[in-house]
């Protein structure tokens, strides 16, 4: 399936081959013809056509245009827009009409993007499978029967279906990178604090970030540049010779043979580009899963405290189970988890980024897991499965580091994605390197048959 890209759309708009209004009309027809709202939660055509018309008029009158002028986008259902409904993936009783607009949406508006709707998400952004108790699960276009990943499930699916070139998501424990990996698209979680969280739904203030899921690295960095207020570069540069680290094995134990082979392929590609490969012991990252979870759950339970006490039955089974975990987390445990975070940050700065410019890790252990196994899990089993899906994304979250999820190989069962992680503020370098590793979306099972 070919994906729609921002540069492709802008070329057509600039050449006069289409208009923002025509792009939106085409989308409306395609979405209506599908006969299902999924992966969307809400479509807001009226306002979108107004935005598109303004963009077309500005283009006709040769007025200055923003970098995303006329590009249609939809976003995870957790960002306020004044006068519009925001639902957070929750029970209908959790919906509200926003009294203001999220700063990230204001920045996208100013850049000329056309916002036409809200996308499905895990309930309150809790859950890496993409399953939502109230609204079900959008279908993964890249892995038949596979979970779409969450919590930015609809964002990953809409990009993977070729409906939009990019969609905003949020990432607290892997919620951009997991659905990106499941659907074979790019996901870019920025450094903690780079993108403002104003009027976006909170989950865990120590780890919450907002970023794009996108059809390509170029699409992702264009959007990130806008929502970060220009703090990152929109366009790529050839990366200098880099020191790129891989784990010696302790942290990435348990990955599939084909993921191991994909890592080996990537090592070969990077060496071929002249980069220096560094083998480091990242075993201590395995010890960050529980601290990251403890911080996330304790803070999420605080965010939800009043609502959970008032109407616990409006929460889905899995989310209520995760929030119930908070009863097993003492104040000392939370503070200890924060201390572990500080220690891991110091060790990462010294042991990892003292020896390497960037790190490459798996995104998932393999392709997206099948939905059947996850949907029927209950109780403590859910917590274990969730930990399993986010084991490789948690370090980037708790450490507050920028990480880009990139599909690097397509098997007949679906895409395999790696993460490129760097020190705080290294978004440009990460994206520059990622652009050199983008591959065709063709199955390559034969090449990945032999584990490294």
């Amino acid at each position, binding site marked *: 399936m070919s994906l729609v890209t921002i540069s492709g759309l802008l070329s057509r708009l600039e050449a006069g081959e289409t208009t923002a209004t025509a792009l939106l009309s085409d989308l409306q027809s395609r979405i209506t013809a599908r006969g299902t709202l999924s992966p969307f939660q809400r479509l807001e055509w009226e306002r979108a056509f107004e935005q598109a018309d303004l963009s077309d008029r500005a283009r006709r009158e040769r007025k200055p245009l923003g970098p995303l002028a006329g590009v249609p986008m939809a976003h995870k259902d957790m960002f306020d827009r004044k006068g519009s409904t925001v639902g957070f993936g929750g029970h209908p009783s959790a919906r509200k009409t926003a009294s203001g607009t999220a700063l990230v949406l204001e920045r996208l508006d100013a850049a000329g993007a056309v916002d036409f709707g809200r996308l499905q998400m895990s309930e309150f952004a809790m859950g890496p499978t993409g399953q939502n108790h109230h609204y079900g699960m959008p279908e993964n276009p890249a892995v038949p029967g596979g979970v779409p990943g969450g919590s930015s499930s609809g964002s990953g699916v809409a990009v993977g279906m070729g409906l939009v070139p990019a969609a905003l998501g949020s990432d607290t424990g892997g919620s951009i990178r997991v659905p990106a990996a499941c659907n074979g698209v790019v996901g870019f979680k920025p450094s903690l604090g780079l993108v403002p969280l104003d009027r976006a739904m909170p989950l865990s203030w120590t780890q919450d970030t907002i970023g794009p899921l996108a059809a390509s690295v170029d699409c992702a960095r264009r959007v990130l540049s806008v929502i970060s207020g220009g703090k990152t570069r929109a366009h790529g540069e050839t990366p200098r010779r880099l020191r790129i680290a891989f784990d010696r094995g302790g942290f990435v134990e348990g990955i599939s043979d084909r993921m191991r082979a994909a890592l080996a392929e990537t090592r070969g590609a990077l060496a071929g580009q002249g980069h220096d490969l560094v083998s480091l012991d990242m075993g201590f990252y395995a010890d960050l899963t529980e601290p990251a979870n403890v911080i996330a759950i304790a803070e999420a339970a605080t965010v939800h405290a009043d609502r959970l006490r008032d109407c616990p039955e409006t929460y889905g089974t899995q989310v209520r189970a995760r929030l119930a975990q908070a*009863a097993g987390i003492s104040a000392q445990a939370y503070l200890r988890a924060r201390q572990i975070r500080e220690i891991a940050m110091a060790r990462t700065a010294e042991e990892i980024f003292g020896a390497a410019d960037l790190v490459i890790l798996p995104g998932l252990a393999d392709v997206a897991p099948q939905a059947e196994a996850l949907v029927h899990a209950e109780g403590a089993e859910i917590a274990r499965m969730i930990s399993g899906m986010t084991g490789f994304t948690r370090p980037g979250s708790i450490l507050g580091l920028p990480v880009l999820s990139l599909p690097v190989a397509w098997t007949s069962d679906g895409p395999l994605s790696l993460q490129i992680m760097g020190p705080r503020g290294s978004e440009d370098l990460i994206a520059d390197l990622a652009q050199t590793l983008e591959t065709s979306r063709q199955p390559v099972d034969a090449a990945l048959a032999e584990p490294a």
Partner: protein
Amino acid sequence: MEQELTALLGRAPSESELAIARDQRARVEAGIFASPLLELPGDGPLRPSGRCGALAGTNPFAEGGA
């Protein structure tokens, strides 16, 4: 545990919810309080003058005791 859950949920917890909280407490013991990352300075990367120095102060009884 039951009291904490009742406060959290605004009602008495189910057996399943109690099991989840107990499981989490066990995971906290193993993954937080027994975390190898919390070992005190000496052989590890922690330095009393570093940003993690405050951690050493959380256990004033680690050395020099009678």
